[in-house]
């Protein structure tokens, strides 16, 4: 108990030091922000081998996956931030009506202060550092709490960050749910959380105590709607992209991975046959030996996924794969055809290498299917049909919607990345990261030289009329009234 209190006091001391550091103004300087971003670049380049090793240990990822999804993506994002930093920091002039003589208005971004970034285990380096880029570019002091479920990566970050970044303003605090809980009850100027909706609710409830703004990057069941495609080239590409998006991104443990597929009955068997061919090509006869499929992060999730297949009706719907090895925490890429919709595999976010295919009478039915479920982080639609495209965009709601591909929206610096409803709130990437960690401060400068004398009491009809005119930017009206040439109008009719 005493140890508890001591640990809590130590944490509070550390945080107070960081707030002091922030108050000193150091992190506001453009030079500081640049140096931190460059530090991140150096970290990513110099520690590349270590990162590959840690990701392989925590998740069984091949370096190609690790580079594509984490290191490479981060390097791109840091360079984008370095490129835009000066522009982003300078804010925007706001347009004023002509009547606002000798007045200027501008929106000036400023850092929020001391922010907390909580990341998840499936892209443990990427999801820790991507928000960090935004927080640092925006001039904040940052505490990063990486996921304890990816312990090698968490250690790596805890060791490397103090070496490459300003250790008075950027700290890594490692630990499990206990530490997470303690951190959540402190006062932050922003909390950025990536993880499940269940914990997301806890985060925002804790934030409410201090009126702390939050960004929650959650998940959901991201569907891939595959229209009946006539060209065999298109079919092959669609299948490659869907299977790649499901199985080759952390073995399906990805918030924007494909969760399940929707397809017309008449196309479904051709689709499955094509999928089997492509699966063999991607993962070979023995996927476990292929080194191209990450493993399940831990026993808890392995057992969770295994139990999804226990239901005999679900088990009998397996059309490809299905084998599992508990010791190596490996689950073979598996495809299922029309498992029961009430089964857990169709109700919860799968977050694993199991791909259910749901058949519909017409592809347009997919709209209702998707809309009767919580809003997902992403919807993927493979089609060349214009009317279907337009319907999908206007009739469904999701964080993002991608046509004829999946997951690539993650790499687009110019697109906001975030959820809606159960899949989250807020967004980041590119300039959106900078904005999410900034306060957009309105600044108006006035001169002493110009005032409308009718601004001031005592009030009378004359002044009222002048105000009516100014609010309508009716300059002629103002002049006439001032000159006494316009009658005051007390009518309650519109003006």
């Amino acid at each position: 108990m005493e140890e508890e209190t001591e640990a809590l006091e130590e944490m509070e001391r550390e945080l107070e030091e960081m707030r002091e550091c922030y108050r000193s103004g150091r992190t506001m300087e453009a030079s500081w922000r640049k140096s931190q971003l460059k530090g991140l670049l150096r970290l990513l380049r110099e520690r590349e081998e270590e990162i590959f090793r840690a990701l392989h240990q925590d998740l069984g990822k091949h370096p190609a996956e690790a580079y594509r999804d984490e290191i490479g993506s981060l390097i791109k994002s840091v360079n984008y931030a370095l490129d835009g930093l000066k522009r982003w920091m300078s804010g925007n002039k706001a347009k004023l009506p002509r009547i606002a003589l000798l007045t200027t208005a501008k929106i000036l971004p400023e850092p929020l202060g001391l922010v907390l970034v909580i990341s998840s285990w499936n892209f443990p380096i990427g999801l820790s550092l991507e928000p960090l880029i935004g927080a640092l570019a925006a001039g904040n002091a940052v505490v990063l709490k990486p996921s304890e479920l990816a312990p090698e990566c968490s250690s790596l970050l805890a060791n490397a960050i103090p070496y490459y970044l300003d250790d008075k303003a950027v700290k890594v605090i490692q630990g499990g749910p206990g530490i997470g809980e303690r951190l959540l009850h402190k006062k932050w100027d922003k909390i950025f959380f990536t993880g499940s909706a269940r914990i997301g609710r806890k985060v925002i409830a804790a934030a409410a105590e201090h009126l702390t703004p939050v960004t929650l990057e959650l998940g959901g069941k991201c569907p891939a709607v595959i229209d009946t495609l006539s060209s065999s080239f298109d079919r092959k590409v669609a299948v490659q992209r869907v299977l790649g998006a499901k199985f080759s991104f952390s073995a399906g443990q990805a918030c924007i991975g494909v969760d399940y597929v929707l397809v017309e009955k008449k196309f479904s068997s051709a689709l499955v046959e094509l999928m089997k061919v492509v699966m063999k090509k991607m993962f070979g006869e023995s996927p476990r030996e292929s080194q191209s499929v990450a493993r399940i992060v831990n026993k808890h999730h392995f057992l969770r996924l295994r139990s999804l297949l226990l239901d005999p009706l679900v088990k009998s719907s397996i059309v490809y794969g299905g084998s599992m090895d508990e010791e190596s925490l490996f689950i073979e890429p598996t495809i299922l055809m029309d498992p029961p919709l009430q089964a857990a595999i169709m109700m919860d976010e799968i977050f694993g290498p199991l791909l259910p295919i749901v058949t519909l009478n017409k592809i347009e039915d997919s709209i209702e299917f998707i809309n009767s479920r919580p809003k997902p982080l992403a919807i993927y639609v493979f089609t060349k049909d214009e009317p279907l495209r337009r319907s999908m965009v206007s009739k469904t709601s999701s964080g993002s919607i991608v046509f004829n591909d999946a997951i690539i929206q993650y790499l687009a610096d110019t697109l906001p990345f975030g959820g809606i409803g159960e899949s989250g709130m807020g967004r980041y990437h590119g300039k959106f990261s900078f904005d999410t960690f900034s306060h957009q401060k309105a600044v108006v400068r006035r001169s002493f030289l110009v005032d409308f004398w009718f601004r001031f009491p005592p009030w009378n009809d004359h002044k009222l009329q002048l105000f009516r005119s100014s609010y309508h930017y009716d300059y002629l009206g103002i002049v006439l009234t001032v000159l006494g040439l316009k009658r005051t109008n007390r009518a309650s009719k519109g003006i």
Partner: protein
Amino acid sequence: MAGEDKKQQPFDSKAASSLVAELRGAFASGTTRSYQWRESQLRGLLRMTDEHEQDIVAALRSDLGKPELESVLYEAAMLRNSCKFALKELQRWMMPEKVKTSLTTFPSSAEIVSEPLGVVLIISAWNYPYLLSLDPVVGAIAAGNAVVLKPSEIAPATSALLAKLLGEYMDSSSIRVVEGAVPETTALLEQKWDKIFYTGNGRVGRIVMAAAAKHLTPVVLELGGKSPVVVDSGINLQIACRRIIVGKWGNNNGQACIASDYIITTKDLAPKLVDVLKNELETFYGKNPLESKDLSRIVNSDHFTRLTKLLDEDKVSKKVVYGGERDPTKLQIAPTILLDVPRDSLIMNEEIFGPLLPILTVDKLEESFDIINSGAKPLAAYIFTNDKKLKEHFVNNVSAGGLVVNDTTVHLAVHALPFGGVGESGIGAYHGKFSFDAFSHKKAVVYRSFMGDAAIRYPPYTNGKLRLMKALLGGSILGILRALFGRS
């Protein structure tokens, strides 16, 4: 007739739940999404305000004793402007925003599409009860949502007027008013909304956010704080004082979230400042301000008691240098200035929201920034100075929702500026396009062709693919060429 029904049936959880279900049905039908619907509703609000301006003025006089000019200007005219601006810009706001795509996502095109959030709840405040109810509604409608408005019960005449008028002028399948107090608000807050927009104080703000947390509902909280005014020497003191006065007492008698809460000035300047303030106050409100028709009254006896308590605290009661008179029968307190109040007094530790203006004095004006930054971040902060360095220091170092140099409160009227707080003064912002954005989901849409795939994307993973990937993500054409041809 609707009012009578309400008296008989309490608005409880069940009623709230079926109200939301009804509006969800309306939203799902797609009615609120069309440009025509949004435009017609905004025009409805405009007509409503035009045709009933005198009713609005009367309701505000009844609820707050608000002078007609303030009602016309700060509530009716501002709401009209909001509607007109939205009507003018709506088509543009509704259009998707095309964005550039890069090498890593080539070939593709992308855009950001604004879509309505769904069914939203707007809870408004009592001090500008017409404006603060309908201004957010303008944004919600412009963005294509179905809306439930809960006006403040502390301004009952305006609340009743809004319920009546919105029922007459708006599409009641998608826009509703729920009147009531804590029980009704609690019932509403239990429901799942797609957004909650709250204007009021920090205590209730926390309750709103905690309720929203259960449903992962995003919120906008327009709260308050102690908005300071820093006054430097070497300025036109008369103009500065007029602007301070009209921003404080000319705004609902100080009961406004962005009214100047307190002044910080140098010990040297303070006596002169007080003199000029006294003169100008007398010019505006006469020798007997309790009788002046140009001042709102204190809204109710609770707030009257709260304010007199601030005034009568031992530490400050002797610091009154002007005013201090009060009339409990009229619920009126005269414009009051206090000089050199202690930092630990009640009046310096809560948002005043009334006609009392304490002045803090410092040796050097630079000290004022530390004072301001040591407290909670306010909704607004003001400075009167001609010193360029001081201006820059202020703008760059004082954190508040919005800042104004050489005036107070005017930023409220600028559509192109986001209006909102930071820290304790709030979350999110609105006005102009920011209102539209606050009630929209910005959906990323990417269009890819079936062409342009690279084998490197897919397993089996090899070192060759790794090299090429590095080059691609690094964005260097040379690197890509090298990798393609097997060298790295």
